[in-house]
């Protein structure tokens, strides 16, 4: 907000919705899931990239035959990406959508 003295404007329906406990709860729920998850996969990706870039000896160790530690780390990125995708989709379908849809119906009723 700026310092200008403003004539108080009537609150819009969206602002009322935004202020409501239900919406604040939904927003908190979303951010509490999505932000830590983003941090986790970005850090895990950074670990992989830095190891591949600066820890050649470690990544070149053979685990069995020609399978190296580096290959397992690389495939681990695939596994974690698939896992996070499924965990998120499951969470969103079960825990997020029903509440978001309920709020949407309320809000669309008010803003119409």
């Amino acid at each position: 907000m700026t310092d200008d003295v403003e004539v108080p404007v009537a609150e819009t329906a969206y602002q009322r919705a935004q202020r409501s406990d239900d919406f604040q709860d939904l927003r908190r729920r979303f951010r509490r899931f999505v932000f830590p998850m983003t941090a986790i996969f970005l850090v895990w990706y950074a670990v992989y990239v830095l190891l591949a870039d600066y820890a050649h000896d470690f990544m070149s160790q053979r685990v069995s035959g020609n399978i190296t530690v580096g290959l397992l780390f690389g495939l681990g990125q695939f596994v974690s990406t698939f896992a996070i995708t499924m965990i998120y989709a499951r969470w969103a379908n079960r825990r997020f959508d029903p509440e978001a849809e309920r709020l949407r119906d309320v809000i669309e009723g008010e803003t119409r």
Partner: protein
Amino acid sequence: MSAATGAVMAAESSDIGNPAVNISIFAAFVAVTLIVVLRASRQNKSAADYYAGGRNFTGPQNGTAIAGDYLSAASFLGICGAIAVNGYDGFLYSIGFLVAWLVALLLVAELLRNTGRFTMADVLSFRLKQRPVRMAAALATLCVVFFYLLAQMAGAGGLVALLLGIDTSGGQSLVVAVVGVLMIVYVLVGGMKGTTWVQIIKAMLLIAGAAVMTAWVLAKFGFSISDLFQGAIDKAGEGGEALIEPGLAYGATSMSKLNFLSLALALVLGTAGLPHVLMRFYTVPNAKEARRSVVWAIWLIGIFYLFTLVLGYGAAALVGPDEIKAAPGGVNSAAPLLAYALGGEILLGFISAVAFATILAVVAGLTITAAASFAHDIYANVIKKGEVAPDGEVRVARITVVVIGILAIVGGIFAQGQNVAFLVALAFAVAASANLPTILYSLFWKRFNTSGALWSIYGGLVSCIGLIAVSPVVSGKVDPATGESLSMIKNVDVDFHLISLENPGLISIPLAFVLGIVGTYLSKEKAHPELFAEMEVRSLTGAGAEKATEH
């Protein structure tokens, strides 16, 4: 192209594959997809139909189309080649390109679907000043699309030498022109709906083809990855062990290690800023379907990249890095050469037709994005200030399609012989620098304002392209062994490179994020709490989101 390389190509291309087989399989693909496009075009009435396919695609359909858009020629040919020649370091491309989808899934896809209509700029201009922000976002979109288009068209020209046995520069230009004209027809007639169906068909062909080749390669090595690697190591001869260890491409110096970091950053943050990917989220009826599309896309793309790991090492083992590098088309020819080694001219014909279909489909997807961005953002909202008849906007979009098609043909002819992977990596770096920071800020940061958006978009765009221009990629990179230039400018006397970093992402992406913050705090622009409230409520709940059109 010099006479010497032309002669080499003539010698090489005459003994691989059968151009008649390649051309007839490709012609069959074109015929089938044209019929599909014509059928799809019957329902194109409104702007929502033309730009967003009426928002009637299901999640799985759109997810397959996203995979079709994303698995471009550079992905398929480039990654196979990078793994075949550089081994483990080539694997980074697959991982970065895949992990990047989590950014789109968690932070962007659904919120974007809930708040926008057709383009990325719709979301940015939701609570910021319409005209300057739309202009900036549209320019960034056009830049990304342009580099991506050049890469695809250059790839088309280069492949022709190997696949169709056309080895003259004029013949390749003709093929680039044919690809361009076909693409114009698809997009002009079919709009987003037709383009989406082309992507779906192409994605299924590409993934099926790669699956067959992967099974074939694995069968040759007793379904043992370790034995496959051993095959690649043996074929490479002395020092072949390096293929399965990191550092072959980027391990030489501390500078090349920084290049690896920079590339890794651009790859993981680029995807969620690619305008042609973002636009696909508008082709589904709601945010839930947008989520389903990304889930489908992640599975298809991830599985495909696992195939490319096998195909890359398979090409190294069965064809050999030296033969791949010497072939016309260079590293990009690893996958076609592997197809030929496995299944002779029929499999080569199928894979090369799929590669062409890939280029055609991706170019169509890029073109409709650029046309939407120009017609919807620049023409309708900046020039006409939103006062334009609904069919007027689509008419401008169609004209734009023709103009972009012609530009792509001309650019593609000039870009022949350029490094395809470099152009795509540049497009990712521009997308990650100019687009992603503003998208994230405008969705999640209440204080963000117009000034911050402009600083971030233009700062990211200019720094990214500027850094490329003064990098060794454009001038001054000389192969110490041969004395030949490895840069875009082939004259070794021209050298204006100032920095040694080849991918600008490491500097330009953090810079664009910081500029967004600086620009925001430097402006005295009044905040619009009521618009932020509307945007936040809509983005999370889907209230008031654009609905699918009824037919």
